[in-house]
């Protein structure tokens, strides 16, 4: 049994604790509100000065350290919304007024919010000299900072960042789509780094690399993609390599893709290989795809039909012949593919005003 005295003491203690918590919350709310209002006033005062300086390079802003921090937020918003000469003018003002240096300094701030804002500004402004520091921030303890760092490396566009971005995929400490978007933004200039960086990686990294190399459309990676298609242990990597080879569209990929279409290969790979052959087109793909039309697996046969429809006039004739044949799955896939391609041609003609 607990005595009534203890109960009263306990009630009073809980009441006091609640009162103190309430007081602390109220005080911090008031302080936050005051800080936000002060910050808003600073933005109101700085924004017109920045806009004037964009149009007139003789204007000097003489910013205080607090102004510089506020300017990081304003400039970050502006740089994400505009392009062209005015964007360049904003970057020039930021450099001239020391805001870029302040942002570099802020990447070491104790507050994660400040680090994230600073790194985002450096990315949006495309500050190449910040690339080394931004790469370090891919390992920041804060999730938002790491994500901002990955995004910024894409905007800065330096291919040297690709190995670090690939490591971030492997470490799984930055969202996959953010990293892939960043690498895609760096573009074909990073193809060499992608090939070098992916060979030793985990299957997920190679699969993403294959996808990105296909999007880049560079012939630089054909050997690597062909090796992955033929020999990789991961089916996912082989499938993505097949798709990438189709996107690059080099005639030299017809042989490895035809091999991937063999009956001994997994169905998912065969289906993608058929589609990829259609993207490459040409006479050599027709006989392979014509055989694949007879595949017992609907996914392979249907993709072969659609690939033939996309692979040029000779392939189209083959498909028309198959469509006129006796009722079968092959004939029905051929008719379906022909209807689809005719519909898209009609839509394209209507858009052209034909």
């Amino acid at each position, binding site marked *: 049994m607990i005595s009534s005295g203890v109960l009263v003491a306990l009630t009073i203690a809980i009441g006091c604790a609640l009162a103190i918590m309430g007081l602390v919350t109220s005080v911090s709310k008031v302080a936050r509100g005051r800080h936000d209002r002060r910050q808003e006033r600073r*933005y109101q005062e700085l*924004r*017109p000065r920045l*806009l004037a300086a964009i*149009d007139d390079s003789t204007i000097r802003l003489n910013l205080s350290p607090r102004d510089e921090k506020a300017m990081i937020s*304003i400039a970050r*918003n*502006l740089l*994400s*919304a*505009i*392009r*062209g*000469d*005015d*964007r360049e003018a904003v970057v020039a003002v930021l450099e001239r007024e020391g805001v870029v240096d302040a942002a570099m300094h802020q990447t070491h701030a104790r507050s994660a919010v400040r680090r994230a804002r600073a790194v985002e500004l450096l990315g949006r402004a495309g500050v190449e000299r910040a690339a080394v520091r931004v790469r370090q921030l891919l390992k920041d303890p804060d999730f938002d900072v790491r994500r901002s760092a990955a995004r910024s490396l894409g905007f800065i566009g330096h291919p040297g960042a690709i190995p670090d971005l690939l490591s971030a995929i492997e470490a799984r400490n930055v969202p996959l789509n953010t990293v892939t978007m960043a690498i895609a933004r760096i573009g074909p200039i990073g193809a060499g780094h992608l090939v070098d960086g992916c060979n030793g990686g985990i299957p997920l990294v190679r699969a993403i690399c294959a996808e990105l190399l296909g999007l880049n459309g560079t012939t630089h990676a054909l050997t690597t993609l062909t090796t992955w298609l033929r020999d990789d242990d991961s089916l996912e990597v082989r499938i993505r390599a097949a798709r990438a080879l189709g996107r690059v569209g080099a005639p030299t990929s017809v042989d490895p893709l035809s091999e991937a279409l063999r009956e001994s290969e997994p169905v998912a790979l065969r289906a993608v290989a058929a589609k990829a052959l259609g993207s490459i087109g040409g006479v050599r793909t027709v006989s392979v795809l014509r055989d694949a039309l007879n595949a017992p697996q609907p996914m392979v046969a249907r993709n072969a039909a659609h690939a033939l429809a996309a692979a040029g006039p000779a392939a189209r004739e083959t498909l028309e012949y198959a469509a006129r044949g006796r009722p079968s799955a092959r004939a029905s896939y051929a008719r379906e593919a022909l209807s689809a391609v005719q519909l898209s041609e009609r839509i394209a003609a209507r858009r052209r005003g034909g």
Partner: protein
Amino acid sequence: MKKVLVVEDEEDVRELVAFKLSSAGYDVTVAVDGEEGLAQARRIRPDLVLLDWMTPRLNGLDAAIAMRADPELAAIPVILLTAKSQERDVERGFSAGIDDYIVKPFSPKELLSRIEAVLARVRISK
């Protein structure tokens, strides 16, 4: 002086656009969302409205549709300014009756040229 109504919720962008248009000699009024934009349009009868698609309360596209349905505002040219760049988004915008479509990130200089072009077309059609 031509009157332009700028409806944009992002303050930094709104102020930049207003500054650029004022510097180019336009009489600029601003609003932060579609609802306020419609109210301002009824009040000042602008020569052109620049609408951001993604605004709170009433979005820019719905505001454009509401303008086209209102006999008093239907003839005012509208330019949609948006981060939505997909083909179907552009089609949706033009189906709503807008006069031009500008994708963010945008060039302020190009924005001015497009505004001038739309206003010139209106002058010619009158």
